[in-house]
Structures are given as C-alpha cells and as structure tokens.
C-alpha cells in the first residue's frame, strides 16, 4: 500500500488574550504581541499516516483537538508547526487562503456534521452539490447538470429532491447532500466529521452502509471523526485516540477496542453503553481534564484523571511507543498487553 497522507509533528497553538479592556490591549501592544500571550495547545506534536483506501477513525472527547486537527489537515486553517504531505505534495507551507484556489484542493474534501447547518440555506440541493464542481472543476451547463445528477444517484438522493432547500429535506437526505457535494470532485481523501451524530439509528445505518459502498466503488480513503466508538469499530480499519491535543493510542480498530492499552482508551471503551449489559462495575473517570493552556511539557496530559497515574507521570511525559502494529503513550502500557501464550 502507498501512503496517501503523511502528517508529521503537527501542532496548532491558539493565543488566548488577557481579556477585554483598554489596559490589557495596551499591555499586549508593548509586551511582544501575540507571541507573548499564553497559548492553548489544541494539537500538540501529532504524527500519523493514512494509506490509500484505508479508513482511519479519530476518536476523543470534545475539546481534545479532533476538529482542530481535521481543519488543519484539510487546510482550512494554518498549522503552527509540522508538515502535511498529500502524496508527494507538501501542503502545510501554503497559506489556507491560497490553498482554497489550489489545484490540489479537490483532493481533500470534507463532510460536516449536519448538512442542515453546513450548507448555504439559500442554495438548493443542486446548487450545494454543484458549487464545488463550478469552483474547482469549472464545469458549466449540461456537463455540470450531468455530473451533479450522477453523484446524486450514487448517493441515493432522488433527483426530484435536487430543487429543494436544506430545510425541506429530512436528516438522512441532508446527510446525503453533504456526502454528494464532498465526493462530487472525486477526492482521494474524504474527511468525515461526525456525519451521523444528528441522525436516528435507523437512518445512521443506511448512511454508514452508503459510505462503505462508496468507498468500494470509488476507492477513497476516509478519516472518520466520531465520539461514537461503536460506529468507529464497525467502519474503521485503524483508529487514533486523542486526548488533550496528543495522540495517546493508535492501532487496528478491533484490537484497540478489544484490548485497550492506554488508561484513557480503557475508560472510553468502558463508557460505551451496551444493550445487554448492566452499568454496574465499570471503570469510572473522576476529576476534570487538565488545562490545555501552556501545559507543563513534563506532565502526562491524562494525569489527575488517570486511575493508574503515579509520580513518574509528573516528571516525564510518556512518548508514543510501538507494540507491534500499535502505538501507546503510557509508561504502564506493558501491564495491559494481552498475554501471549
């Protein structure tokens, strides 16, 4: 397999202001500008790859930096540090505003959470799907209509719905519009940001099966962002678990969910509700997450909520270590390795 996307040491820091008011603004102006401000480490030194035709899941709780990472590698925002390579092309040096008109823009496309909110409310379904084709493929007239109808059919969207506005469509139909507009320009990598979070289970199943079928037909790679682990387990080949800006565990989806090595992953897996199981004795997380503003580089991000945390976790940040096909950032990962007999 060949590597499609290679993300190396990507970081994204956001400066946080000292608050409103004349005095803080005055102080900021004469104290070194935004460089001197404290910074939120939204994404901190993240590296991973996506192979051609692979489905990678990205999971983690809200505020862990999933969305920032996704926006950085779809080049909607600029990274603070690190490189993003799509095939042979290095993307991270190009400003996001410039990349919007780049010839490679079409190679990475995104499906957002709720097409009801991410699609222009004054665009019909046809316009929404046609928009990227007009801008990136410069299609007009019959060629455009033909391409839009082809993609709509591919996504199971009845053609008579193409004249409707987002608010006239049901949740499942909107999700189809969101997928159709993303695959219209034949991307190589499709980034899906919780595409089924707003849907009922019966509709969710249909959309997930559509995604799997499209993957077989077109051969795209997926980066699937979700906090619903039971969906990630079904759809993804490999999974990345993020916690406060860091990847804490990665590996084949089934192995990670069956034998999680990092304490955070274990808590995450334990928190997934299961129909045939009572909520009795489970691993419970206590405490609040650490602050992501200028975190101590020596302290493990999970320390304080971690049931396994010791003093060693406050003196050295655990690095990602490889165990076969898996990587874990925990000093005590060995303890949870499945016994090989």
């Amino acid at each position, binding site marked *: 397999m060949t590597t499609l996307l290679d993300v190396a040491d990507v970081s994204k820091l956001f400066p946080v202001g000292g608050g409103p008011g004349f005095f803080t603004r005055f102080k900021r102006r004469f104290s070194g500008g935004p460089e001197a401000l404290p910074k939120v480490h939204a994404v901190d030194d993240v590296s991973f790859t996506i192979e051609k035709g692979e489905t990678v899941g990205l999971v983690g709780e809200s505020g862990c930096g999933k969305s920032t990472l996704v926006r950085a590698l779809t080049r909607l925002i600029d990274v603070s540090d690190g490189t993003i390579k799509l095939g042979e092309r290095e993307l991270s040096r190009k400003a996001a505003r410039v990349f919007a008109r780049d010839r490679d823009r079409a190679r990475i496309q995104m499906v957002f959470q709720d097409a009801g909110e991410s699609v222009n409310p004054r665009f019909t379904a046809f316009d929404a799907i046609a928009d990227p084709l007009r801008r990136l493929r410069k299609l007009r007239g019959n060629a455009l209509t033909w391409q839009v109808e082809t993609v709509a059919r591919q996504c199971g969207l009845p053609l008579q719905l193409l004249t409707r506005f987002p608010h006239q469509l049901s949740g499942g139909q909107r999700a189809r519009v969101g997928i159709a507009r993303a695959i219209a320009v034949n991307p190589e990598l499709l980034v899906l940001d919780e595409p089924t979070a707003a849907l009922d*289970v*019966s*509709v969710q*199943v*249909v959309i*997930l099966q559509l995604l799997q079928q499209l993957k077989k037909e077109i051969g795209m790679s997926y980066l699937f962002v979700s906090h619903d682990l039971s969906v990630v387990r079904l759809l993804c080949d490999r999974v990345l678990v993020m916690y406060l800006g860091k990847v804490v565990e990665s590996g084949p989806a089934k192995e990670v969910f069956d034998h999680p090595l990092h304490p955070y992953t274990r808590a995450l897996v334990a928190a997934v*509700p299961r129909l045939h199981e009572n909520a009795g004795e489970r691993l419970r997380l206590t405490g609040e997450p650490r602050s992501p503003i200028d975190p101590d580089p020596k302290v493990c991000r999970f320390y304080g909520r971690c049931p396994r945390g010791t003093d060693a976790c406050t003196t050295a940040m655990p690095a990602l270590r490889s165990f076969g096909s898996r990587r874990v950032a925990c000093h005590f990962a060995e303890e949870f390795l499945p016994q090989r007999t």
Partner: protein
Amino acid sequence: MAATPALSVEGLSVEFRTRSGIVRALDNVSFSVDKGETIALVGESGSGKSVTAYAVMGILDPAGKVTAGRAMLDGLDLLHASPSQLADVRGRKIAMIFQNPRTALNPIRPVGQQIADVLIRHGNVPRKEAPAQAVEMLRSVGITDPARRAKAYPFEMSGGMCQRVMIGIALAAKPWLLIADEPTTGLDVTTQAVIMDLVNDLASQMGMATIFITHDLALAGQRSSRIVVMHAGHVVENAPTRELSTNPRHPYTAELIAATPDSAASLDELASIPGSLPDLRRTDLPPCRYSERCPRKIDACAQPLPYAGGSISHIVACWNPLPASSEFEAKASAA
C-alpha cells in the same frame, strides 16, 4: 411488587393544530412508573417521547391540546389540574431535566442562585439558608470547588458541568419523579457515563422514580429496569429491559435492536428499518401506524390495536408479534 405507581399515564392523546392540518402526535399512550423505578421511553425522533413528557409536565406548546387521557400523580390528574396546582407540583413532586442545559438555564443568573430559587419556592428552605444549601447541592452533584462555582454563570461552565447544575436544580426539592429528556445527548461518552451514574445514584438515594427519554436503545438498556418503545405516537411495546432486549415481540422493537451498532459484529450485519414514519396529519392513518413499514403485516392489522401480550408486564401492541421465547413464557405462566 404491587406498589402504587408514582405516575400512571392512561390513554393520553395529544393533537397539534398546524396550518397544514391536525397532527395526531400521541394516541392512547399508557404506561406507569413505580416508586424508585427507572423506566426509559425509547423511539426515533418524531415518535412522541418528548411530547409525552411535555404533556405530563403541562408545558405543551399552545398549539398542542390534550384530547383524552389522564396522568395520575399522587391522586392529582396532571392533565386537568389548574395552573396553580401544577405550579405547586412542578419542582416539588415532579422535575425535569432538558436536553440542552445551556439553553434551559437562565443565562443571566449565577447557577447557585438558580438552585437557591428552587429551594426557596419548593423546598421550604428559609431565604437566608438557601445559598448555603445550594452550595451543598452543587457539591452533591459532583462539582469541584462548589462555593466558587455557585457564583459562576452558565456560559462559564462546560456542557457536562451545566448538566450537573440542571440535575442539581431538578433534584433540589427532592421530587418523587424525575423526567430526564435526553440528558446526555451531545455529551461525550465519558461524560455521559458520569452524568448517568450521578442520576442513578441520586435517584436510588432518594427513592425517586425516573422517566428517562432517549433515542439510544443501548443506553436505555443499560440504565433502566423497564423500556417503553414508542413509534409515531403509539406505545408499541412495554417490557422489562432484559426481556425486551433478548426477546423483543414487536417487529419495530426487533428492527430497532438490529439497527443498534453495538449489537453487530460488522456493518453488513446492521439492518436498516425500511420506510419512514407516517405523516401524522393524514386522516386515513391505519390503526397500527407501523403496519405500512411492517414485514409481518397480516389482515388483522386493520383492526384496532390490541394492548396485550405474553404477560401483564410485557405489553405488545401487535396482532402478529414475534414468538415469545420459552424462557419468558415459562415465567409468565408461572406468575
């Protein structure tokens, strides 16, 4: 356990008048909750779960009208009570947690004061002691540094923290019955587990009955002792959780379980439910609103729905239900 139910809803029907016709949102909905019991109302969006809760709380949209039925809470029919009677009952005997805590909380009052308001109005707490008790309440819902947090406004707190405050407000006056309308939708799985643990722990401490509304069958299965499945304004099945999850009798329940991702080993195994909810404005709705999507439809489905089933505890509104497994049949005949 033949305890008197904390709340019993009997034959509740609700209609909404809209410009495009009358929407029959609920039709003959009946269920009851025993004291200290947790039941779950499960269904897809549009199935009438929230409307049921709103009707019981007396907070239906003005376009909605209760056309039949009663909801008995401690000898009082909530559906026909006067506004002042209802105002006394709400907060004191029955409380509700909403889906989006940030919009349900008052944005311009510190959260401690919002809890104190409930204590003063419904908890017979003197005005002077209320703030201190509000801090205690915040502590009991697991907020760290409650004295400082009591002065915070909702926008200064995370979603999980706001939901804890909501629970604090709902439970401040120690109600008999808590209605939780999708309390954890939009929260992370880890936060969801913590919030649900909190509700369960507090409910069992106070001996409170809980009606838990959710679209997540897996979560309902894990957290309740009885599940009421709703579809298009009808209760289609009402059974103890373990019985419902291992031996669903109504075709819709079976399809819903088959569509829940956690039960499948691969994506191909997941079954989708064909068709969609019927338009509830139609005047020619069939007696069984599922019959047009149903794979087990027979001629008898044109008759009014039966509310029967294997046993009194397992109610199935279907003429051609799936067979009961031998294990539960034996139990039903022994009972």
